[in-house]
């Protein structure tokens, strides 16, 4: 998927030898502020577009332009508005127009600035920018695009600041710039005289905005980029000082919760006891909003009491009477034909992927303070511009009267692309005339929150002996809601792409689904049905299911033709990077080693976001392991060992990348073995982390190795979601090999309900009172 068809990226090791020159600004400001300006990145140029159009019928579109290219192109014209500020205390500030939700982008961005400025990493202060509509597309956090899109502009701004500081130091020290050396935020001249960045911050400031140029370091000069660094917010996290939205003390913003319907997206018909609930201890307000009945109180505990006390008559929801079985029938009715039966031998299989919850540990939440003529919102938002526009429209306010603060999030996994909590908080604050701190209960998050859509995937591989002649995949899914900004990007740029006839989802699908194998005629299509569910692009979106299906059928074909699964895959790989990660996990994981009956290895790979990954796992499916007793948990087969290899082109922070791969692995284990939502009678049964079985310590592989491959392309690819698909597939393949039966429905335990569902009325459970009995 790399290289040949893509425009050259503006890297320091591109066609021009040595340093590359970039344009930017020094902005008029009290202290030094440098801004990066990129010439619009060479978009889908005429030549590329022609090639693409000609190539469409047979080529893998992601080889020409993928979703990340599209997003990077979309952001280029406004990337010049990124600014780096040098402060008098020697710190360097940067307001990152992205959402930090655990993926480590504040740390990696600080590393880029530390690298180009030659300032200690600890002196770089990264905050999250408020919603800035002038950035248009450039404030959407998704598709693992942050580092791809900001790698160059952030460094350019830092490099401009460095050059300006050098010029100021030359005047200060009475020396020529080329006599100066910069180290750790201090500039030293002849004779050892020196001056710190902080002392130059005002002297280097500009009274007039001016356009300048700067050079970027060549990769060979990097001393920060590519070195393992710990998260800059780690100390705050381990001391409890890190503030999430619900930890903020916004004056007057009292705890608020919503009594939600018993079925998905039901609406309020009437409330029988508003006055009685209003009279409960601590309760200040009770008001009906489109999604339920809001209560505001002194504490969240009193909100819980009030929500449980409300007597509400509900109208039906959007999935009334539906169940897993009925949705499966809908999907089957929507499945696209596989085409004419093959004239050659083939292997074929169909897989079902159940709904999965998209909840982070921090439940959906937002603070809103709506006043006559203005509104202020605090929330973790991955699409804050769209949120701000929607809030302004809802309140009938000019855009400038709405302030949207982006707060660090307690996880996202795609969930925080949606700003439904912010909209609810705004509505409640408007109706009560008071600031509100809105938090969803865990049960709300699981039952009324976002879900990875249920899907089926059919795969057929045609072959003749050892030769693979064709690959077909028909993925049929409950609609994925992409209405949070991706849509705008696609709308704006789809005309440049050879996908004019496709809708948003199908475009997203073809742009994100790569095909790393040379399997002859290749046809992969998405069809979607039923928009009645609250779905979202959960971490890695379509890829985990699509890849899992593909890799299982590859194992099936290898088995049929008597080939080793690793060597079979290897023989058909299109590029060296993919082969290298596959080889790495095979050798490090001792592929093919003798293992006891009931245990096995599985191997799989995935490429996306200009990155490649391979995963080898060992699984133990023996009864003594599967049936280990764990209270209120699902044990099941255990992944006892995992080996991951990842090539992201150029790694900014290997320690952060390893963390992302570890998290992706846990997601993959969960999606194959334990995690799903059960739909019955129009609602999801799960209402607790002891119902929704995300990977827990007892499911965690005791042995894990992650290999970060050396720099390959020289530019960073995406990483935050990359490992989910290969992990899910490797676990599924290992399970199939250990049990002798290829799994066809995921997660494998979905058919067994491992908990007693909580009631739907009242919609949330009361907190227990026996906490002291469980002290340990």
């Amino acid at each position, binding site marked *: 998927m790399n290289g040949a068809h893509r425009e050259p990226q503006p890297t320091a090791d591109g066609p021009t030898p040595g340093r590359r020159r970039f344009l930017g600004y020094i902005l008029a400001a009290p202290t030094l502020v440098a801004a990066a300006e990129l010439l619009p990145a060479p978009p889908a140029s005429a030549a590329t577009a022609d090639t693409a159009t000609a190539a469409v019928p047979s080529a893998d579109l992601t080889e020409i332009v993928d979703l990340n290219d599209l997003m990077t192109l979309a952001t280029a014209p406004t990337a010049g508005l990124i600014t780096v500020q040098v402060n008098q205390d020697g710190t360097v500030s940067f307001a990152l127009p992205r959402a930090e939700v655990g993926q480590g982008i504040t740390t990696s961005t600080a590393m880029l600035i530390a690298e180009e400025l030659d300032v200690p990493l600890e002196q770089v202060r990264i905050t999250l920018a408020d919603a800035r509509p002038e950035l248009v597309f450039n404030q959407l956090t998704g598709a693992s695009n942050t580092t791809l899109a900001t790698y160059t502009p952030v460094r350019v701004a830092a490099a401009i600041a460095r050059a300006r500081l050098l010029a100021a130091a030359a005047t200060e020290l009475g020396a020529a710039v080329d006599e100066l050396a910069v180290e750790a935020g201090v500039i030293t001249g002849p004779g050892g005289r020196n001056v710190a960045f902080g002392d130059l911050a005002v002297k280097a400031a500009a009274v007039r905005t001016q356009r300048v140029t700067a050079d970027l370091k060549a990769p060979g000069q990097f001393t920060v980029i590519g070195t393992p660094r710990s998260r800059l917010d780690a100390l705050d996290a381990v001391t409890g000082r890190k503030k999430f939205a619900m930890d903020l003390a916004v004056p007057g913003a009292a705890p608020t919760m919503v009594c939600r319907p018993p079925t998905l997206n039901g609406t309020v018909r009437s409330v029988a006891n508003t006055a009685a609930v209003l009279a409960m201890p601590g309760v200040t307000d009770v008001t009906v909003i489109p999604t339920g009945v809001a209560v505001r109180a002194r504490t969240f505990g009193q909100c819980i009491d009030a929500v449980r006390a409300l007597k509400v008559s509900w109208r039906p929801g959007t999935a009334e009477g539906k169940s897993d079985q009925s949705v499966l029938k809908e999907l089957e009715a929507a499945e696209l034909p596989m085409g004419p039966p093959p004239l050659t031998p083939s292997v074929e299989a169909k897989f079902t992927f159940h709904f999965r919850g998209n909840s982070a540990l921090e439940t959906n939440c937002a603070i809103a303070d709506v006043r006559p003529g203005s509104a202020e919102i605090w929330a973790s938002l991955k699409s804050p511009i769209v949120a701000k526009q929607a809030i302004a429209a809802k309140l009938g306010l000019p855009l400038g009267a709405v302030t949207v603060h982006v707060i660090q999030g307690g996880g996202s996994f795609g969930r925080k692309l949606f700003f439904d909590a912010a909209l609810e908080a705004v509505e409640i604050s408007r109706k009560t005339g008071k600031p509100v701190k809105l938090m969803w209960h865990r049960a709300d998050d699981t039952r009324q929150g976002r879900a990875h859509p249920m899907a089926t995937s059919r795969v057929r591989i045609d072959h003749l002996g050892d030769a693979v002649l064709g690959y077909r995949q028909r993925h049929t899914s409950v609609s994925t809601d992409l209405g949070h900004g991706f849509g705008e990007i696609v709308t704006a740029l789809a005309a440049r792409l050879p996908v004019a006839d496709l809708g948003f989802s199908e475009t997203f699908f073809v742009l994100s689904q790569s095909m790393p194998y040379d399997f002859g005629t290749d046809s992969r299509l998405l069809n979607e049905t039923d928009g009645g569910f609250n779905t979202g692009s959960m971490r890695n979106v379509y890829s985990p299911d699509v890849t899992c299906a593909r890799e299982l059928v590859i194992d099936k074909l290898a088995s049929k033709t008597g080939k080793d699964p690793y060597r079979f895959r290897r023989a058909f790989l299109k590029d060296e990077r993919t082969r290298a990660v596959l080889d790495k996990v095979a050798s490090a994981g001792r592929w093919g080693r003798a293992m006891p009956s009931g245990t096995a290895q599985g191997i799989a790979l995935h490429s996306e976001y200009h990155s490649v990954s391979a995963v080898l796992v060992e699984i133990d499916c023996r009864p003594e392991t599967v049936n280990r007793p764990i209270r209120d948990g699902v044990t099941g087969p255990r992944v006892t060992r995992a080996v991951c290899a990842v090539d992201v082109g150029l790694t900014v922070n290997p320690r952060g990348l390893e963390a992302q791969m570890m998290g992706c692995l846990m997601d993959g284990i969960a999606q194959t073995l334990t995690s799903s939502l059960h739909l019955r009678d129009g609602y999801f049964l799960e209402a607790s982390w002891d119902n929704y079985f995300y990977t827990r310590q007892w499911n965690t592989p005791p042995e894990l190795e992650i290999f970060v491959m050396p720099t390959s392309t020289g530019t960073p690819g995406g990483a935050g979601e990359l490992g989910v698909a290969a992990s899910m597939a490797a676990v599924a393949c290992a399970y199939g090999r250990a049990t002798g039966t290829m799994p066809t429905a995921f997660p494998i335990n979905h058919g067994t309900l491992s908990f007693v569902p909580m009631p739907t009325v009242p919609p949330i459970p009361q*907190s227990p009172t026996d906490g002291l009995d469980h002290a340990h």
Partner: protein
Amino acid sequence: MPERTFRLNGEQVTVDVPDDMRLLWVLRDILGVTGPKYGCGINVCKACTSHLNGTAVNPCAIPVGDVQPTDEVTTIEGLADTVDTDLHPMQQAWLDHDVSQCGYCQPGQIMAAVALVRRVAREGRELTEEDLDGIRNICRCGTYVRIRQAVKDAATRM
């Protein structure tokens, strides 16, 4: 409303709240101590794990009326004050292994880990893989392997 008093991170605090109010909301909404996080409210996710007289408890499931005036409640904010160093060895191990991702569950993870290591020490035995398997705290970012490494590391320093 009745007055309730207890010790919190080394200081006596007094609040005017109903007896059945869960300690989590007393800490977060009344006292502004936000280290213990809400993740479920039903003693499942363990994000609010804190210590009561040195053992791990979940404030979301404790009515404040059950807390006695002499009881010592320690949240993540007070953990470092229980040792002579700037950070508790468990917090330091967390930094050394760069455990946190989003960080939301980490105060609860650390408080649970400290209690686990203390319990194992009280029982006069070594920390086992089964002990680590038994940590129920959810980490939705999935940093479980680094949590295991940090707990094992800190156990040698506590």
